[in-house]
């Protein structure tokens, strides 16, 4: 564990120095990353130039959903996002060189091409969330105030578990990074809209099977004082950290199983 973190830190440091070689490009990509993700919100904003509410939710409420999920995904993406490159590394055989290094493979894969520009997504997510918290007329309690940062961190951990599980899946499937993307990026696209917009079966799937609803829906519904469409009690809002911890178990088991099944391409 410790050597993993140390290795991760060293590789990340190397990539940051390498990124800073092209400083203009770094500034442009970080700004671009923020802009690209902010555009999703601009689209929602344009929708609200035609309607007052979407699924019964007003714009600042959706901004809370949007900003928190964007910040969570950005954080997970910064720390673990490049695990999806493992499929390409399996295909071209360069995973072999990682296996002989004295650092856990997961740490190497996670730090691979560490992209500091992803701060852009985190920044815009936190910004939109800040605007939402500022604008919303919420009856703040200590619990609700604490729940907001906990929601972002636990959400990041849940997305992180999905990323590790997705990377493990690529040991079996080969180059299938996009499947992982549909749960992370696709999941975040879904979570930025209120749950009332979606079909009940879809809600059950993202609550009980891949528990994305704990990233932000359940905590945010509690903060906003709205009932969960599936009828879950309010206190489940506080379960996000536990859920994040629990989903890492199958993810890490899958990762180990994937690693054991690995056969080099031999090239």
């Amino acid at each position, binding site marked *: 564990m410790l050597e993993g973190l140390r290795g991760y830190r060293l590789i990340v440091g190397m990539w940051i120095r390498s990124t800073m070689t092209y400083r203009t490009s770094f500034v442009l990509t970080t700004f*671009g990353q923020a802009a690209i993700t902010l555009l999703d919100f601009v689209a929602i904003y344009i929708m609200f130039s035609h*309607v007052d509410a979407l699924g019964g939710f007003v714009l600042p409420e959706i901004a809370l959903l949007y900003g928190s999920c964007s910040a969570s995904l950005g954080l997970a993406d910064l720390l673990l996002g490049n695990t999806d490159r493992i499929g390409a590394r399996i295909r071209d055989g360069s995973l072999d060189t990682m296996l002989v290094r004295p650092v856990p493979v997961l740490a190497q894969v996670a730090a691979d091409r560490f992209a500091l520009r992803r701060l852009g997504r985190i920044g815009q997510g936190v910004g939109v969330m800040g605007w939402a918290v500022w604008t919303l007329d919420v009856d703040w309690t200590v619990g609700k105030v604490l729940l907001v940062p906990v929601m972002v961190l636990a959400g990041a951990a849940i997305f992180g578990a999905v990323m590790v599980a997705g990377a493990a899946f690529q040991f079996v499937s080969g180059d*299938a990074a996009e499947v992982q993307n549909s749960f992370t990026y*696709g999941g975040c696209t879904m979570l930025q809209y209120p749950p009332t917009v*979606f079909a009940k079966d879809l809600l059950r799937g993202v609550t009980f099977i891949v528990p994305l609803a704990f990233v932000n829906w359940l905590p945010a519904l509690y903060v906003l004082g709205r009932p969960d469409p599936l009828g879950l009690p309010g206190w489940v809002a506080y379960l996000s950290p536990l859920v994040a911890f629990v989903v890492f178990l199958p993810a890490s088991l899958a990762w180990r199983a994937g690693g054991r099944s690995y056969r080099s391409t031999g090239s």
Partner: protein
Amino acid sequence: MQNGALRAAGLYPAVAAGGFRRYATYGTATAAGVFTNTVFGFIVAYTYIALWDERPGLGGYDQAQALTFVWVSQSLLAAAALIGGGFQEELQERIRTGDVAVDLYRPADLQLWWLAADLGRAGFQLLGRGVLPLVAGALAFPLALPVDPVRWLLFLVSVLLALVVSFALRYMVGLVAFWLMDGAGINVMATVASIFFSGMLLPLTVFPGGFGELVRILPWAAMLQVPMDVLLGEHAGAGGAAAALGFQAGWALVLLGTGRLLQSAATRKVVVQGG
């Protein structure tokens, strides 16, 4: 000279076929892409239902047309490289390493070479990643797909023009690597523009006021909004179709021409560096 022309007539189709085959080898990646496009299709479709429930007829579409917009967008996404992908990173890498000098010595036109390869890629992705998400969408939601074969034919022509416009823009993005040694920043900015101004996020007819009018005449509109409107029958009659396709063809010519100017400026730069 005539021999040269004949060789060229066989060369570019061969390059396109190569582009097609190259992407056809990534079976798992294609399957994963179909899965992703379908998942996104479902998510966006539900949000559009919520939106069009509130405002029927928004942007000039009824709900079935709006849902058709969602699913056909997902089908065109990979082919038209609307959220990035395609050849430009490879071109930038060849510029960065200097391999592009070899390409320039070849008895083939650089821009046409990459156009052929990219159309081959797009052709594969239209079939590989385009058909299945649309079928999934049509099974799950009521879509407004036309039954008129002429409309489909016009749509295919419009898609071809969309692919050329998309190529022409990305070719210029690729060439920027001659000046900026690292293309990552400009690539992200190009993707931003493409996602927002093509109609991927929201149909351009929903964009408000003068801003809406502006985005509908920019080249990105030719990459998604126009083919979509041709399919949905928004450009009814021969005049309407001609205007839509003419708009796309006009942008294709302007952008290919600008790319060519940029290319000759860039290749002069190669000679300077080489000497």
